[in-house]
């Protein structure tokens, strides 16, 4: 009696690969549908609207070419908002990365109350921004600022001295950046903590044996090894900050005298509140090329660093 041995045929192998491919497509489909419907289509629509004279109260529009772009670029308010966007992003991301590193290193240590500290650090990430900003609104209120009252009691401010946090152009930007840093810090801390814990202890020990001090260990060993994850944290933070309008809108509504607008809040003011959808869209998509280049550069940089 001869034994029959089942040998997988070439044909069945192909079938399995096809089935796998189908399954892969199926599993990717929800993400593709989501991105197409909620990201790609609105983006293309915004691009289209920026070339029209569309307004909020109308479904009719005419093609106006680059007129909206020419008009907004010549507008001093746009120029200021563009500058604010870069200042807002650069300063807040620098603060977030530096402070996130400090916090992540602290959380790597073992200490009493670490669980509570971790909970408190994560709180701002979980709090709804509208609710949190209302709290901050009171903290920075120009008439009733709790910071000022504390500074008065502490003797820092004299009887006629007062900080107008939201009424002074510089202090208002400081307030906006402070809230954004407070809000972004937990995410950055967690990402950086993950990066730090992924570095094998042997590497640190080897560096210590080779005589590296704390600073040179951080800057010459740990930070280069964390580059991919640091890049992701910075990229996410930059894109999120560049496109965020919630803090500005809830805290200052772009004031005083439209001096704290970022591009996203200006786009909302012009396009939705003012009803000039075409102009608002042209402001909103102005940074797309910048963000695109930034994302490509940073992702390439992260990919090359992965071999470390």
């Amino acid at each position: 009696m001869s034994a029959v041995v089942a040998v997988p045929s070439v044909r069945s192998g192909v079938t399995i690969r096809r089935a796998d491919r189908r399954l892969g497509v199926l599993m990717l489909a929800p993400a593709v549908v989501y991105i197409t419907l909620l990201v790609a289509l609105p983006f293309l629509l915004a691009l289209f609207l920026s070339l029209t004279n569309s307004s909020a109260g109308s479904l009719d529009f005419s093609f106006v070419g680059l007129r909206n772009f020419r008009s907004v670029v010549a507008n001093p308010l746009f120029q200021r908002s563009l500058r604010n966007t870069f200042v807002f992003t650069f300063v807040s991301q620098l603060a977030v990365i530096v402070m996130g590193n400090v916090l992540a290193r602290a959380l790597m240590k073992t200490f009493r109350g670490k669980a509570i500290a971790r909970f408190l650090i994560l709180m701002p990430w979980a709090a709804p921004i509208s609710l949190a900003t209302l709290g901050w609104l009171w903290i920075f209120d120009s008439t009733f600022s709790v910071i000022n009252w504390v500074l008065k009691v502490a003797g820092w401010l004299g009887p006629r001295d007062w900080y107008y946090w939201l009424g002074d152009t510089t202090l208002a930007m400081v307030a906006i950046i402070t809230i954004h840093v407070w809000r972004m810090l937990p995410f950055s801390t967690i990402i950086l903590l993950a990066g730090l814990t992924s570095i094998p202890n042997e590497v640190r020990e080897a560096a210590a044996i080779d005589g590296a001090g704390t600073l040179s260990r951080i800057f010459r060993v740990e930070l280069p090894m964390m580059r991919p994850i640091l890049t992701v944290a910075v990229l996410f933070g930059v894109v999120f900050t560049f496109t965020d309008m919630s803090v500005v809108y809830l805290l200052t509504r772009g004031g005083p005298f439209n001096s704290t607008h970022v591009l996203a809040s200006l786009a909302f003011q012009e396009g939705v509140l003012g009803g000039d959808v075409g102009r608002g869209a042209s402001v909103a998509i102005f940074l797309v090329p910048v963000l695109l280049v930034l994302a490509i550069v940073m992702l390439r940089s992260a990919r090359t660093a992965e071999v470390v």
Partner: protein
Amino acid sequence: MDTRRQFIVKGGKLVAAGVAATAAGPTILVRDARAAGQLKILQWAHFVPAYDKWFDPWAKEWGAKKGIDVTVDHVGFADVVPRATAEVAAQSGHDIHMFLGLASAFEEHVIDLGDVVGNLEKKYGKQVELAHRSTYNPFTKKQFALSDMWVPDPGNYHRDVWNKIGKPNGPVTYEDLVWAAPEVKKVAPQMQIPIGIGLSQDIDSNMAVRNILWCHGGSIQDKEGNVVLNSPETLRALEYTKKLYSVGMTQAVLSWNAASNNQAFNAQETSYILNSISAYRTAQDNKLPVIEHYYFTPALKGPTGIQLASEHVMSGYVVWKFSKNQDVAKEFLTALVDASRESMLASKLYNFPSFYGAAADPGTALAKKNEAGAAWIAAQCNKDPFGSTPPDKLALLARSLPWSTNLGYPGFANPAEGEIFDTYVLTDMFAKAATGALSPKDAMTEASNRTKEIFNKWRQKKMVPGGGKDK
């Protein structure tokens, strides 16, 4: 039993079905909401919360009598325009949308309410002129909205402080504020902001700077819709504001939101604000110490005697073209005007009827209705049923109509005026001039250029007149 692969494939089909259902969902829901016998209304959360407690059950009850299910949704005043934008884009949503101030930008998407206004005027007499000028576009000849109420915008002053500086009845002219500021500092040094007129990006400041502009003889447009902001009168208004800011205000006023001047006055941190009576009612409800010093003045006079103030709030109800319940919506709006007395009382005298005749005693002859309505309104203000001491504290409100006007004065409200209002072109100009961020002349030039750009855009859409005599 399914294998894992079969399970995943089935799951995938379910997800696909879910996506399809989600995509179709709004259509199904909207169709359902538009079924006969339904009416959906979107309006603001009133500054006097007692009003909403009256309005919502009243609307429901009105619907119940007619077999109509009425739904009322409230949004904050800042969300009224964004919600309208979203509903127009989706071509679905509520049947009736209430605007505060200017609904004119949405004219193309609302039905003409000329027949409703015509019938109401036959029933009650003419509506107040500022309501007409806020809801009718003479250029397109369309009654795009219906106003059931408007709100006066008097000055609120701290009588104790003003008494100490020798003006127990408060300021009469804008120059009085400049004179009073240093005096207030002397008698009430604890007050942070002697004169509290907002110069920020909010609704109250938007009204306040228009008041200053108009009373100095300036305006954004003339009667024909030509842009005339670039004028010696505007310059005079800006120079005045710069002077007032330097002697009587602080940077706080540059950051105020709609509640800030109320809070500052109620905390006795300022001696004068421009506001409706909502701050006063809050002080009353909370029994704040300021209440005994809380008094009102009419609009202030400018250097040539012009005395004007913008309405503080002006309702503008529109019925969307996409509404399937337009006739019911019209009936509802008529009923709302019919209930003008209840509305005024429910808002604790915050709302003033746009049809004075609707507040007249039933049975009054048409020719006498406006007069009789005005008398009823005066009776309420002269003896405030909500516990003012003295009872006639609000009496001047009954005489506020002659010094109250519409956004867009001396012309009609229009979409260009609306965009200028909503993008803070004027508050920006005043704040820059006041703080020295720009010279008054440069601030005026910058604002005038932007204003002309906005007007020209709307003129191209054939919704705004003028242009031949722009300055």
